[in-house]
């Protein structure tokens, strides 16, 4: 049996998957870089505990969308509502504090640091003891460090990367680095997990592993997942609802089956005959 991944404080409660209320609501987002319109008037919502995919051909604006939610880009127009609070401007750190974690399309791991240290950085916001206490290793600080380390060990077991604990991540193969990236995001105990092309550049086997991890996180943890993906097959298999973007516009939104039979989506992906 694989060890379950759950916060040390609270035991897992999710047994059957229940899709809840809207947790993240994106309204009329537009994003322009100079004259280039990356996104035009995009609206969609994400419900609690669901797996929501954003798909679209290259350059459709998927990553821009994710970066808007993550606070890396500030949308030119529109607003984002998270748990009932509406924002039109925020930065990455605020987003992290609200319980949104992300992974990166082009890995942004701390290459010189070991796997453990990388994932431990994800606990940063949870660490309460101050600098002086940490430096002197006073009791509470020491205990806190051990507690966080224990949590990180759970994640390492969960992602099946026990053998690479102490390896600097720069030396790991690509597929494993992607797992570490996911692990670091999981260490934040996020409510919403944003995955930017988690399966890009992977072979079939690695993709299957990653799918399994994503489904397990969603299942055991109840984490809401927003993922961007290229690979249509994978997305249709694991997501509850799908948004389709093309040239910065929303052209489809609904269950995988609805999206699959949507004319606009088919023509965007396969091209139309004129």
């Amino acid at each position: 049996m694989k060890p379950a991944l759950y916060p040390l404080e609270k035991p897992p409660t999710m047994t059957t998957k229940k899709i809840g209320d809207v947790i993240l609501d994106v309204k009329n987002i537009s994003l322009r870089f100079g004259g280039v319109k990356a996104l035009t008037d995009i609206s969609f919502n994400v419900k609690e505990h669901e797996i929501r995919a954003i798909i679209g051909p290259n350059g459709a604006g998927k990553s821009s969308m994710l970066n808007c939610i993550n606070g890396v880009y500030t949308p030119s127009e529109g607003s984002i509502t998270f748990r009932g609070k509406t924002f039109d401007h925020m930065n990455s750190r605020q987003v992290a504090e609200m319980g949104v974690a992300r992974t990166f399309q082009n890995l942004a791991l701390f290459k010189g640091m070991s796997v453990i240290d990388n994932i431990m950085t994800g606990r940063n916001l949870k660490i309460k003891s101050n600098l002086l206490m940490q430096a002197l290793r006073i009791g509470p600080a020491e205990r806190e460090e051990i507690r966080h380390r224990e949590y990180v060990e759970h994640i390492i077991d969960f992602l099946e990367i026990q053998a690479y604990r102490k390896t600097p991540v720069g030396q790991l193969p690509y597929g494993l680095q992607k797992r570490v990236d996911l692990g670091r995001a999981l260490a934040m105990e996020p409510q919403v997990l944003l995955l930017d092309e988690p399966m890009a550049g992977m072979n079939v086997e690695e993709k299957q592993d990653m799918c399994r991890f994503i489904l397990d996180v969603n299942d055991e943890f109840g984490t809401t997942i927003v993922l961007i993906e290229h690979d249509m097959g994978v997305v249709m298999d694991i997501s509850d609802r799908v948004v389709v973007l093309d040239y910065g516009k929303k052209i489809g939104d609904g269950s995988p089956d609805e999206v699959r039979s949507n004319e606009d989506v088919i023509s965007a992906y396969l091209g139309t005959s004129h």
Partner: protein
Amino acid sequence: MAFFLETLIGGLMAGMLYSLVALGFVLIYKASGVFNFAQGAMVLFAALAMARFAEWIPKWTGISSPIVANLAAFVIAGAIMFVVAWLIEKLVLRHLVNQEGATLLMATLGITYFMEGLGQTLFGSDIYKIDVGMPKEPIFALESMFQGGILINKEDVIAAAIAAALVALLSVFFQKTSTGRALRAVADDHQAAQSIGIPLNRIWVIVWCVAGVVALVAGMIWGSKLGVQFSLTTVALRALPVVILGGLTSVPGAIIGGLIIGVGEKLSEVYLGPFVGGGIEIWFAYVLALVFLLFRPQGLFGEKIIDRV
């Protein structure tokens, strides 16, 4: 043999001071990815502040104990370095997040000249003395082995002990605390660090502050040996080859690099100098650094950079 050992020890002591300055470079580079050209200016600035306050405090308050006056001056100089760190973050670094390394380097060049000027405007441009009451008399060691023994400067030994303690403290801080981990994370990738909620701004203030304190200790030791004067900034330039030798990302590298360069300079001056007419000490470190750049660009202990092509 005794002469060789004396030269060696002299070199080690000089090297340790290079190490301290190099340590400042490494700290800031590790934590913010910035090659801080202003480290030398920070050494001068901190040393000037300490020297002048140690002189002013007895005058203003009538405290006659040199220990109290020096201690107070050290604390005040430390506080000033904190303010400097805070201002640098607030006015310069904050606006340059995610910029190219070259841009940040140019910014620190600007900071260098500004701090050199400001330091001398505020504190004066004469040669000042820092006297922390280190014993000056020499010790004679190993008298049983060599005739007359080996001459060691007691002041140097104390300075070495202070430096060693500082280094030990910093390694623990970097490797064993979660703030240290956050510092290393920021050094690797600003954007990723922000996405997991590490506060870049606070981290930068902390690291510049630590580098400021290291500069203060370096300036204090150096100032008490040679007096606080403008030429302290050029000493920092001598620490550049140390950083290249040891690796920009390695604290132990800075220490060992400093020692190698210190010893290398003294030994080459004494033993090779006569053949080429002397003056080796001035360029030896740079040539050694060049050789290292050819064969081991990441330095002795630096992290090897592997890039996906």
